[in-house]
């Protein structure tokens, strides 16, 4: 197991380097010029080429792309992701400030997703082709296909504007102290929006896994021993049916983070996703790179965790 883990971590290194090269290339080739922020276009020609060259030099953009990449990589290996072009603050301090907010939102979203998906999936499987199965299946298909931004706006329209129950956007009203109810009512809508996709998918997985498990011989054995239906389902069937859900959890981490970009933007949630979107729009290369590398690392780690968890929950799987 340890050997396997080490092997996977070593394999991740070239993967991350390739991802970083591709990302670096793409953002540098994308239209737009970060120097434009420093030069008022009305005055650009008055400033002369020296001034523009000075800005380019200051931002490190006067060197060829490959040199810039290797410099960036060298700094990253020393733990330095550079400075944001426009805030002149270190990328890491910007991201560290926002990361806890994103993590909290993602965890609550995942929690909501699981709390709904697991029981609903079980009901669908046990009462297959019943009205409940159809209702939950329909909900999960709709949930999977709803565009996040539309769903978010609809929730705001209904719960903030029409009913006035929940705040429109933001993370808190009380800035002086941490008030649990204040935070709770702000997190409800964004967490539901962010958790929707995962909830729908998990419901389908749960249903499928449960259906497979309850047809197994050991379930029939358990029933024939005269165990109550509750014990059969919860103790014997559920534990085995949860395996795909546990694995899915690892994979859902990066998905939550990339989905958070849109949700955070709609609900004015001060997280890393919103920073990523703003950084892309303003061509803030160092900030974009820092942000994307975090997502890349989390994807790699997430899939590793998923594989390891798989071995933990399913004794049939062994990594050598």
């Amino acid at each position: 197991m340890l050997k396997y883990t080490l092997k996977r971590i070593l394999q991740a290194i070239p993967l991350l380097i390739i991802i970083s090269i591709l990302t670096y290339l793409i953002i540098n080739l994308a239209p737009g010029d970060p120097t434009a922020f420093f030069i008022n276009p009305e005055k650009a020609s008055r400033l002369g080429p020296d001034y523009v060259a000075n800005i380019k030099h200051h931002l490190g953009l006067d060197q060829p792309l490959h040199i810039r990449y290797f410099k960036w990589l060298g700094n990253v290996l020393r733990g330095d992701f550079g400075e944001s072009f426009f805030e002149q603050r270190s990328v890491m301090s910007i991201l560290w400030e926002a990361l806890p907010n994103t993590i909290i939102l993602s965890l609550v979203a995942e929690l909501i997703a699981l709390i709904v998906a697991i029981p609903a999936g079980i009901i669908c499987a046990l009462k297959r082709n019943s009205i409940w199965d159809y209702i939950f299946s329909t909900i999960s298909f709709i949930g999977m296909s709803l565009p996040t931004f539309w769903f978010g706006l609809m929730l705001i329209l209904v719960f903030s504007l029409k009913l006035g129950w929940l705040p429109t956007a933001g993370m808190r009203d009380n800035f002086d102290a941490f008030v649990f109810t204040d935070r709770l009512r702000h997190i409800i809508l964004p967490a539901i929006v962010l958790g929707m996709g995962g909830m729908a998918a998990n419901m389908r997985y749960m249903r499928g896994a449960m259906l497979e498990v309850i047809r197994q011989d050991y379930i029939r054995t358990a029933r024939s021993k005269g165990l109550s239906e509750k014990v059969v389902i919860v103790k014997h069937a559920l534990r085995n049916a949860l395996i795909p859900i546990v694995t899915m959890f690892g994979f859902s981490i990066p998905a939550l983070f990339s989905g958070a970009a849109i949700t955070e933007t709609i609900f004015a949630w001060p997280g890393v996703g919103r920073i990523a979107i703003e950084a892309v729009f303003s061509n803030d290369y160092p900030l974009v790179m820092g942000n994307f590398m975090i997502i890349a690392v989390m994807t790699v780690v997430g899939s590793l965790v998923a594989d390891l968890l798989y071995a933990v929950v399913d004794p049939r799987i062994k990594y050598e």
Partner: protein
Amino acid sequence: MWSCFCKTKSNGYIRWATFSDPKTLCPIMSDDSGSSDVIGMLFTGPYKYDKKTNMVPDMATAMPEISKDNLTIKFKIKPGIKWHDGVELTSADIKFSYDLIRDPQVLSPRYADFMSIKNIETPDKYTVIINLKEVDSAFLDNLTNPYIIPKHIWEKADKTKLKEFEAARKPIGNGPYMFKEWKKSERIEVVPFKDYYDGAPKNSGVIYDITPSTATALVKMETQEDNMTQVPESDVARMKTKPFLTVKPYTSTTFDYIVYNIKSPFFSDKRVRQAFTYAINKEAILKGIYKGIGQVAEGSYVPALWCYNPNVKKYPYDLAKAKALLDEAGWKVGPDGIRVKNGKKFEVKILTNQGNKMREKAVVLVQNQLKPLGIKVEPRILDWNTMWSNYIDIGKFDLYYSGFITGITGDQTVMFHSDKTIGSFNRGRYVNPRIDELYTLAKKTFDKNQQKKYFFEAQQIIAEDQPMTFIVYRGRNWTFNKEVTGTEVYNLLGFMNMDKWVVTK
């Protein structure tokens, strides 16, 4: 607690919903509207504009003295003006700040505005003397901006990294409001400064509530979570239906216009450009696309401007005149209905930038309006940067639809001067030696009446030449919750005297 869910109590605060996320609170480095909004509450300048856009003293004691050769600007500031930390503001702070802007290593976005300064002298604590390299009356406008930072704090900063310095995130200013707290991407809170030289603000402070979009900002007005925001044309009608909101309109110096590439074979003849202006139904565009908010434009000078000339050639919608002018210019209708001259068909592309819904619709309307003339216009909607760098900046275009914001000084050299280094926004490469001369003359005098004469003549020439077709002057609107009283909104300037407003709840 759960019953009063939504409505956030204002507690006497102005709660300003915005979608601009400020980048820095260093007045020397800021270049985005979010930063300027907040800096405008925390800092002041030597001068300011009054309701009628006259320049009047703010920190200064009187209007600036200009030397006979027009090369020296001298003014004094009031004694006893305090920074928010209690230290007195002196001429040394002004010199320090302006010298930073002038330093090319600082990379200030205002560098070009201060290029005409030779040096700055401070003979005593309150007197500032600015010596110019060349006469530049347009420079005066810079004295109305809040660009002054405290020397005793900022002299410790690395001048190449001003934004990184602590005071760029926790600024010490001299304005009516004091900085309290900035939560990135969430909000900025400012509170009254008791020792403000013009009297402490009458409200509890301002919360600059940062939302991700205009849509969210408007919803926050409807749910009464916030009590002031700017409303785009498309939403004015909706805001007006709410009994607890007031909408206050004003004209800005912003307009949308079409720029012709005068070096192209289609638009080198002014009769063709005049024909286009006759054939474009501006009234229809204003009503259909800008929801009737704003005004049909005749030129680049907004009617509210002090140097607006009403007596220039006008181009009321007239298809017959347009057709006649095109015939006269040699563009005859061909067998397929498209006009032809020397074997070349009148087929052009109109560019505009992606993401601006109104412009995207407007170019289609222009396409339809020019069809009956026998002119084929193909709209091309491009990414902002691509449009400028790959097409317009290198002269690879026929015509484009865009917008422009002018200053209120009347100096519009950047749009019309034929020298690229001066008329840097003359992207249609319009050349008229008299226009160049007029704008140069206007810069060389500080006499407003003289300037007015030059600007009047320039407007007449531009109306005749039509290097651009001006479509609409954009109408702007602020909406306030009625709990905010005393709000004042003026043409060209927007809202004013925020510190005098009172929030009743």
